C-alpha cells in the first residue's frame, strides 16, 4: 500500500478530492440497489471507512442484509452472513479444527475457518444467540483475531461486523450487554421506507432484472481512505465540544441536561468520543472540508451515543428513547457554547 502519510498541502487537497470521488462512487453504486436510506447508507460508509462495527436495528424486510451485501459487492470485499439462532455455537462462527487425512495417510488436525473469516460479516439477529456465542464474535470484533485450540488466527483487514437486531421480537432473546454494545461504532436505526420509496423498491425488485452493484472501490482503497481520514485535524474547541457532549450523557455531570439526570443511569464511554471524532473527520472530508465542525458532531451524535447510554429504572419504565436525551444534551451544550458577538 502506498505511504498514507500526507506531506504537502497539494497532496492533501488531492487526497481529499480522491476521497470524495470514491465515496461518491460508492454511494452511487449502492444507490443502484438500495432505495432511499441515504442517512443509513452514509453512516454505514462512515463506519466502513472508520473501520468500526455497526449495529443495525430495524424491523425485518427493510433491506439490512441487502445493504451489507451490496456494500460488499461494491467494495470487492469478502462477504459472509451468519444467522444467529439460540442453538448457534461459537465454533459455528469462528471455525473449528477437524481431523484431516493427508494423501500420504497421515492424519492431522486442520483448522477450518468459520464464516467470521470475511471482510464484511453480517450477523443477523445477534441478540438471538446465547451470550457464549455472542462473546465469540465480540472477541473477534475487538481483537481482529480468532483463537481456536490455542492458535490465534488473524482476520483480514478490513474486518467489519454488521450486526442486526429486531426491535419487535425481544422475547426469548439475549440482549447484548452494555460492555459489548460499546464495541460497536454506530447503532443505526433503519426506518420504514416512504410510499415513493416503496414504489421504487417494487419497481426494482419485482421486475425481470434485479440491479446489482459493480465493484468500484478496492480493498486497499478503502483502507487508504481510512488512513487519509484519520489525518484530518480537529480544532481544540471542536474536540472540547465532543468530549463535553460525551460527559453530558452522564447524570452526575454539571453539563448534563435534566432528561439525562432523570432517565440515564450510565453515560457513554470514551469510545463514544473516539466514534464522534473519527466519524466527524470522515464527514468533514465528505463535506469538502479539512476540519471537523460541530455540525459533523451533530450528525454523528445519535448513531455514536444511542447504544452506549444505560437507562435507569424510571427511563425503562417510561420507555424513554435515549435519542431524546442525546438531543437535549447537544442542544444544551450548543446554547452554552454559542456566545455570539453582541451585534
Amino acid at each position: 500500500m502506498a505511504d498514507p502519510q500526507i506531506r504537502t498541502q497539494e497532496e492533501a487537497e488531492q487526497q481529499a478530492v480522491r476521497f470524495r470521488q470514491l465515496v461518491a462512487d460508492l454511494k452511487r453504486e449502492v444507490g443502484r440497489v438500495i432505495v432511499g436510506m441515504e442517512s443509513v447508507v452514509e453512516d454505514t460508509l462512515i463506519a466502513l471507512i472508520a473501520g468500526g462495527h455497526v449495529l443495525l436495528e430495524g424491523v425485518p424486510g427493510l433491506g439490512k442484509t441487502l445493504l451489507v451485501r451490496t456494500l460488499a459487492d461494491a467494495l470487492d470485499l469478502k462477504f459472509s452472513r451468519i444467522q444467529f439462532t439460540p442453538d448457534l455455537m461459537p465454533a459455528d462462527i469462528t471455525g473449528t479444527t477437524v481431523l484431516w487425512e493427508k494423501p500420504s495417510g497421515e492424519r492431522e488436525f486442520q483448522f477450518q475457518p468459520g464464516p467470521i473469516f470475511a471482510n464484511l460479516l453480517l450477523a443477523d439477529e445477534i441478540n438471538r444467540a446465547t451470550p457464549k456465542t455472542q462473546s465469540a464474535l465480540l472477541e473477534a470484533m475487538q481483537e481482529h483475531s480468532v483463537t481456536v485450540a490455542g492458535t490465534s488466527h488473524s482476520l483480514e483487514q478490513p474486518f467489519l461486523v454488521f450486526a442486526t437486531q429486531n426491535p419487535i421480537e425481544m422475547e426469548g432473546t439475549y440482549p447484548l450487554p452494555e460492555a459489548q454494545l460499546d464495541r460497536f461504532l454506530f447503532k443505526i436505526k433503519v426506518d420504514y421506507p416512504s410510499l415513493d420509496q416503496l414504489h421504487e423498491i417494487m419497481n426494482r425488485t419485482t421486475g425481470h432484472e434485479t440491479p446489482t452493484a459493480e465493484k468500484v472501490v478496492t480493498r486497499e482503497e478503502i483502507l487508504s481512505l481510512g488512513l487519509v481520514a484519520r489525518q484530518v485535524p480537529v480544532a481544540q474547541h471542536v474536540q472540547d465540544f465532543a468530549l463535553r457532549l460525551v460527559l453530558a450523557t452522564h447524570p452526575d455531570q454539571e453539563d448534563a441536561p435534566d432528561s439525562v439526570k432523570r432517565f440515564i443511569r450510565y453515560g457513554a464511554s470514551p469510545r463514544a468520543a473516539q466514534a464522534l471524532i473519527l466519524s466527524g473527520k470522515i464527514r468533514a472530508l465528505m463535506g469538502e472540508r479539512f476540519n471537523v465542525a460541530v455540525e459533523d458532531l451533530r450528525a454523528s451524535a445519535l448513531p455514536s451515543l444511542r447504544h452506549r447510554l444505560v437507562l435507569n429504572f424510571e427511563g425503562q419504565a417510561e420507555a424513554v428513547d435515549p435519542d431524546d436525551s442525546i438531543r437535549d444534551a447537544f442542544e444544551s451544550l450548543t446554547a452554552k457554547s454559542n456566545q455570539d458577538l453582541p451585534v
Partner: protein
Amino acid sequence: MTVDAYVAISPQTASGLLRRGLRSLRRRVRLLLALRLAAVGIALIAGLAAPAVLLARLSGIWYPPLLPEAALLAALVTSLLLGLVWPLPDSALALSADRRLGLADRIASAILFARAGLPSAMQRAEVADALHHLQRTRPAEGYPVRAYRATKAAALCLAALFSFQLLPIPALFLSPRERDEKALLHEQAARLYPLAQRLEDAARENEDLEAERLAGRLKKLAQQLDRGQLQKSQALVQLAQLHTDLQRAENRLARAPRRTAAQAADDLTKAARDNTASKAIQLAEQAEKSGDRESADEFRRLAREARRADNLAQLQNIASRLSDRASQLGAPLNFPPELLAALAQAFADADFNLSEDALQQLAEASAEWSGQLTQEELDALADELEALAEMLQDTDLAEVADLLKKAAECLRAGDCEGAAKYLAQCQGKLASCELGAACSSCKGGLAGILARLRGRALASPLRATGASAGTCAGGITDQPFIPLNAEAAKLYAPRTTETSGPLQRVRARVGPQGRIMAITEKGAPVKVTESRVPYYEVIADYSKAAEEALSREEVPPTYRTTVRNYFSALQSGEKPPDRQPAP
C-alpha cells in the same frame, strides 16, 4: 476545496493572511457594535432626560436648554468610540463568522491551526480552504443592519424627550396662575412680532448686521413666548437683556442727546406751516404786482389754508398745490415747501419714505440751479437749507443736517454741483435714521412689555377688576391690578417716602436666573415704611426664592413651616401671621 486556485500556505504567513481576511468582517462588526451601543446610549440618556425635562417644565425649574442634547451627543460619541475600541479577538470573531455565515468552523479552526504553527499538511490545506471561503464571504449577509430593541427604545425615548422639550405643556397640567402667565406671555409675543419685523426690515435696508441679529433674537424670543417655551422669569431676563442691547444699538446709531421725534415733528410742522404760508403770501404779492388778481387771491387763500391746516397730510397737499401753481405761473419755487411737511410727517410716523422722495426732488432740482439762479437767490436757498438744518440738528437726522449745511455753504460759494452732491447724499442717511427709529420703537415696545409682565405678578384669584393704581413715583412699572382682598396687601403698597437725596436707579437681584431692573426711591428716608418696592413686583419672585431656599434646605427645618405659612398668607391677601418664636 481549493482545487481551482492553489494557494500555498506557510506557517509564517498563515496568521497574517487570516487576519487580513478577517478585516472586512471586523469592520462590519465594529460598525454594528457602534450602532448598537449608540442606540443603547441614546435610549438610556433620552430615557432619563425625558422625565427630568417634563418634571422641570411642570415644576418651573430652569435647566440649560441644550443640556439634554449635549448629553445625547456625548452619549453618541462615547458609544461610537466604544464600538471602535471594543475588544474583538480573532478567535471570537471567527467563531461568530463561522456560525453566521455557515462556514462550519472553518475560520475558527484555521486560526487555531495557524497559532499552532501548522504542523501538518492537512492543516495548511484547511487554512487555504478557510481563506478561500473568507474571500467569497459578504459580511453583510452574516451581519445585517437590523433594528435592535434598543433602537426602537431610543427612538421612543427621543420622541418623548423632544416632545416634552418643544411641545407646549397642555393647560390641563398648569395651575390657574400658570395659565394666566402663559396667556400673558402669548399676548406679549403678539406685540413683539411686529416690532421685531420692523427692526429686521430697517436693519436689512441699512445692511446693519448687528441690528439684524438683534431683530433675529427678538423674533426668536417672540416665537418662544408664543409656543410657551419660556417661563415668565426667563422671559423677563431675556427681555431685559434685549432692552439693554437695543439701547446700545440706539446709542451707536445716534450721536448725541437729541430732541424727541414728537418735538421735531412739532417744530417741522410749525415751520412747514409758516414757510408754506409765507411763500404763498410772497407769490400773492408778485401776482398782484403783475396784475394777476385771480392768482393773487388763490395764493392768499392757500396761505390761509396753510395756517389753518389740521394735519400734516393736508399741509403737504397745500404745499404741493402751491408748488404746482407757482410752476404754472412761471415762478417755480426753488425750495419745495412740501419738504418740511414731509419731514414732519416722517418724524411723526417714523416713516422716512416721503421725506426721501422730497429730498430726492430737491437734489434733482439743485442740479439745475447753476446758471438759472442769481447769487441772491442762491443765498436765499442757502438760508432755507440752513434753517432746515437747524431744525434737524438734535434729531435722528443730525447727519442730514450736516449735509444740508454743507450744501448751503456750497450754494453761498456759487457751487451748485457741490450742493447737489451733498443733497443727494442725504437720502443714504435716512436709512440709518430709519433703523435708529426702529431701534427706539423696539426699545419702547420692550419697555412696555417688561412693564406689563412685571405688573402681572399675582395669581388670578387676586386679579383686579377696577382701575389702575397708577404709577409710583420714580417707578417704571404699572400696577394694573389691585387684589380684591386688599387689606393686608395695602400694607405692602408702595409709599412715597420723603427723601433728601436724588432718585437713583437700583438693580435688584430677584433670583438665580439674573437681574431685573427695578427702580426704587433711594435716599435718606425721613421715616421707614414697611415697603419701598411695590408688592406686586416682588411677591412672586420672593415666594419662589423662598421655596427654592426651602427645597435647598437653606432654611432650618424648624422655620420652614413658618416661612411657608408667611408667603401663603401674603399671596392670599390675608394679614400675615404674627411672628412666631422658633420652637
